């Protein structure tokens, strides 16, 4: 089983990949947005967003979705950071996973935007990547993991 970082620990991924070209996804698969939209029962479902796919499509089901996987096909494409914050600020509390080609040096930013799971392209890099989560112990801005900006805490 593939590995990922979840809530600060390395664990096995229990979700199944999906055939992107298949018309339908099963309930244990991480569906593409299009496949997910066709799911009759969205309770406990998993969906992936690509850059350009607005999280607005998920707003009505935030309390039902179990996993949102935000894909970073290129690590320099930062749209996923805003998608994550948007989903969390609207009350989504399920797993929010970053996948694709981001790099470990982005982990603190991703975490602060509300991601709690990280699937790196290379499983073997996870151990080293864990240390990057600790790069900073203080921040100026409000974020998902620290709702008060520094100026309200100084």
């Amino acid at each position, binding site marked *: 089983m593939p590995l990922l970082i979840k809530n600060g620990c390395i664990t096995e991924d229990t979700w199944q990949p999906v055939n992107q070209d298949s018309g339908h996804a099963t309930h244990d698969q991480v569906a593409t947005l299009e496949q997910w939209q066709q799911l009759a029962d969205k309770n406990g479902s998993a969906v992936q967003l690509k850059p350009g796919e607005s999280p607005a499509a998920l707003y009505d089901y935030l309390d039902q979705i179990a996993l949102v996987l935000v894909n970073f096909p290129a690590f*320099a494409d930062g749209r996923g*950071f805003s998608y994550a914050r948007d989903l969390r*600020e*609207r009350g989504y509390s399920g797993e929010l996973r970053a996948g694709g080609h981001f*790099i470990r*040096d982005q982990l603190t930013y991703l975490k602060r935007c509300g991601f709690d799971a990280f699937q790196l392209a290379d499983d073997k890099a996870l151990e080293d990547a864990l240390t990057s989560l600790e*790069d*900073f112990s203080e921040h100026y801005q409000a974020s998902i993991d620290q709702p008060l*900006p520094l*100026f309200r805490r100084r």
Partner: protein
Amino acid sequence: MYVYDQYDQKIVDERVSQFRDQTNRFLEGKITEAEFLPLRLQNGLYLQRQAPMLRIAVPYGLLNSLQLRKLADISRKYDKGYAHISTRQNVQLNWPALAEVPDILEELAAVEMHAIQTSGNCIRNTTTDQFAGVACDELEDPRPYCEIIRQWSTLHPEFAFLPRKFKIAVCGTEQDRAAIHHHDIGIELLANAQGEVGLKIIAGGGQGRTPAIGSVICEWLDKKHMLTYLEAILRVYNQHGRRDNKYKARIKILVKAMGVDAFRDAVAAEWTAIKDGPTTLTNEEILRARAFFKLPDYEILDGEVASAQLTEQTVQNPIFGNWIKRNTENHRTPGYRIVTISLKATGFAPGDISAEQLELLADLSDTYSFGEARSTHQQNLVLADVPTACLLEFWERLQAAGLATPNIGYLTDIICCPGGDYCALANAKSLPVAEAIQSRFEDLDYVYDLGPLELNISGCMNACGHHHIGHIGVLGVDKKGQEFYQVCLGGSQAKDASIGKILGPSFQQADMPDVIDTILSTYVALRQEEETFLDTYRRVGIEPFKERVYASAN
């Protein structure tokens, strides 16, 4: 000026450690070139033609004497004994070694400096009026708001991988010395009908390949909403700005594509979700920021006596008098003047300053100007609080160090990027063009007779030399491997913002002094009474200039 507390220091220190680790991993081959690129850029590090270039942040241009001395030290120890003031009020080193950059950053952190976000596709150093806090025409000091923006934008988790770079400028005067109409976001402190000072927000200005003047997105915003409103603008941009073509990725393209009204609506929709949230500024935070910029302990001086004495000195010493006239400004406190130190002596790259000169300015600022200095986006330095009675001795010390060039705001006060001599992005050299023009126009009487004139030179479309907004702009272009120069006329960075219009086909480097000469003599022949170059250009248009320049070229 702002002083770090334990939080600021910790963030900067942790950033140094992070970058040291990243650099080590790169040198060990554990990070690819492509992955290291944005990491080093977000720490101000470019790999250039000759060596890496390190761009050090000078938040809104403010430096203290300790920092000036540290910059002198660093330039001696890690570089070739000089530094360069950039058009974003930052300081650049042209010759550091990659492996030593973490050490440089550590030394900078010891004097509350860093290189965070001086490059890369993120929010860059916020800039402002170099006369902030001392200008006679200022409504309110913009620097507390710049500092609040600096903190908010530093390592912002959501906006570190934007479609493209993002620049913010703030000014507190109607006159606008911060070029706010030419920034991704420009902010003007402005009173509403009730006399309450708030913020006018302009978005979508910029230079580069497609220059644009910003559009007013909000006429007046309560200051407490500054950060949530900026955040809403950035969110719209981060999600919808183009990422398929880097030349179409700036916010100006998005604003144009959506239309100003639709863009404003999109910002409003994002803002509704976060307005009044925890990022809303508190009164305490605004007061805390303002407390760092309170007036220094000015002596109570008799302004009239000081002026009379100065007049007498200038009569006795006309060279000093000339420098006073060209390089100093009225101060809002009687008995003080604002001094601009020209880094535009002929024979030196515009904006370059030696370690010895940096140290002299540190000494002068300690003795005469409360230990502070400012860098300007015109690539000069300002000592803002010099007692009028001390100006003569002050000038004598500047003169001995080659820092008394009396040309602020005139033709030879050229804004110029480092260009093809240093920069890997450049299409053409810019420094030799600046020097050839300065050498041609050494007759100061002629230069003064031309009146206020801004000549800006960029070595490529990225427009670091602000060529679009110079009254005369020069752009280096590459034509089949040969360096040519395009000229534009009529740009303005001020309140009456405009973008220069291209004169016509480009010229060879050797012809540039003649071309500028023809443009200037055309102006002199056509001007009426007290008209400036820009006034005359706006009255007669580009045609008379075009006719004469291309007639004499043929």
